[in-house]
């Protein structure tokens, strides 16, 4: 196990609010090597033997426990694909915190592609928090292409909070989910791009069981010359309800393409989509300026609030 340097510690703080080692189970990965691991009687973590990654197994009935699996890259030129599988037993209530921070001061690209699969048992409740962050002033790009697959059994609930606010040059996010009877998926995505960054985020959520529901809300800000493509798709195959909302602020020369899609294969499927792209309303700036903020401060407050 390697000792962490200051850059790595800073990255861990940014992505997982970790100021010290977390309580509960954790697996810390720094520059493609294990930097720390702890298991609990209910949560086991094992390295995969056939490829890079870990299996996290949560025993049925595990409640009020947490798993942290953050990853940081602080060397230039690392390219890695990591497969992490979560096997969550029935009747659990667990917090999972993932995320990746890249600091690239070099000239070579650094890339982390995390492929996370969740198998969530009956009536389990999972809260999943994933933050992505990039820093460093090198020419090398910081690239993150996460894939998240969620398979939900009857009556399970998954709440996902996905945040990428700063410093990632290129990202292609893919999230797919399949829900059985009465399963419920809630997604809150926050995305901000700047500079020349490009970000794609695609969702494909299949509501297969009666009583299943999905609520996906994506809020994004595209600044400077950045580009975003948001592709939100819900497929209703049963008596289900699905809602997606794609709300974006566009600034400078930023560009956003929002592609909402709904597919109903059952007359009992109730699917709704909302999408809006626009610049910051002039009235909002004026209101905050009448409170004594400069135009720039007003803009920052509006964006911070929007992405909160």
């Amino acid at each position, binding site marked *: 196990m390697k000792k962490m340097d200051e850059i790595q510690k800073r990255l861990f703080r940014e992505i997982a609010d970790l100021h010290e080692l977390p309580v509960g189970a954790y697996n810390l990965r720094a520059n493609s090597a294990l930097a720390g691991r702890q298991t609990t009687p209910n949560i086991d973590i094992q390295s995969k033997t056939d490829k890079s990654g870990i299996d996290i197994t949560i025993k049925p009935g595990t409640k009020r426990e947490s798993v942290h699996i953050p990853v940081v890259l602080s060397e230039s030129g690392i390219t890695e694909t990591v497969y992490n599988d979560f096997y969550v037993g029935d009747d659990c209530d667990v917090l999972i915190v993932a995320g990746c921070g890249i600091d690239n001061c070099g000239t070579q690209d650094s890339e982390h592609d995390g492929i996370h699969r969740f198998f969530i048992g009956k009536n389990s409740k999972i809260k999943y928090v994933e933050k992505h962050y990039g820093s460093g002033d090198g020419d090398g790009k910081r690239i993150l292409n996460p894939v998240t697959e969620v398979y939900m059994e009857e009556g399970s609930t998954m709440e996902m909070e996905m945040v990428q606010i700063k410093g990632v040059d290129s990202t292609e996010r893919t999230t797919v989910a399949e829900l059985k009877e009465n399963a419920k998926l809630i997604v809150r995505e926050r995305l901000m791009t700047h500079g020349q960054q490009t970000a794609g985020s695609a969702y494909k959520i299949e509501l297969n069981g009666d009583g299943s529901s999905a609520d996906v809300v994506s*809020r994004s800000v595209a600044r400077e010359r950045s580009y975003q493509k948001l592709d939100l798709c819900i497929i209703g195959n049963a008596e289900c309800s699905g809602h997606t909302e794609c709300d974006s602020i566009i600034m400078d020369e930023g560009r956003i393409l929002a592609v909402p899609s709904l597919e109903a294969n059952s007359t009992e499927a109730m699917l709704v989509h909302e999408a809006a792209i626009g610049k910051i*309303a002039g*009235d909002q700036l*004026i209101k905050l300026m009448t*409170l*004594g903020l400069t135009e720039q401060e007003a803009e920052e407050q*509006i964006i911070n*609030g*929007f992405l*909160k």
Partner: protein
Amino acid sequence: MLELKNVSFSVQNESDKTEIIRDLSLKIAADRFTVITGPNGGGKSTLARLIAGIERPTAGRIYLNGEDITELGITERAKLGIGFAFQQPVRFKGLSVHDLLKLAAGKDLSVTEACGYLSEVGLCARDYIDREVNASLSGGELKRIEIATVLARKVSLAVFDEPEAGIDLWSFQNLIRIFEKMRSADKNRSIIVISHQERILNIADEIIVIADGRIQNQGKKETIMPQITGTDSAVNPCHKVM
């Protein structure tokens, strides 16, 4: 003391120029509660926006305590102590009522302090403090929060643009009480309210009637009220509250 000297404001359309404020001059003393009234479309709201710096005059000068503020922007005027409550409050996705009050106060406000301002405007603070200032709030709730943002600022000149528009009768009573309290709390603060509500006009020290971009009448309440009662400039609350 606020002074406007020969202020005009016009907007240029494709073919013609519309004059909204025409060569208007007025003085508002530091300790006055002034209500500006007059028929719709007469230029009242534009005048309020000119004072707050949201619009700039096409001619004339504006002075605050002797300082020429004509060229100052909204932020600079706010920093000089001008507060402004919008007729149509602005919605913000993501900003909570607490966030907005903190920005208004210009410092970190404890929950107790923030709740104090909300209670002032008749909102049960606990229910609102963490609410987002977005479309989930009714027009009346937003209006009261808007007034609370002016209360949270320590302003020397507060401008309220039709504060009663969109609020119910119960809030209307409360609104009158807020203005009376604001006036008694700081004798050096001047309050300008754009309104044609008789009950707001009744608590004024001075009334200014604006029509067609000009001052049509100006003077102490006792003098002006008898002249405008029953006209568009002084309606009763059951009439035009909504």
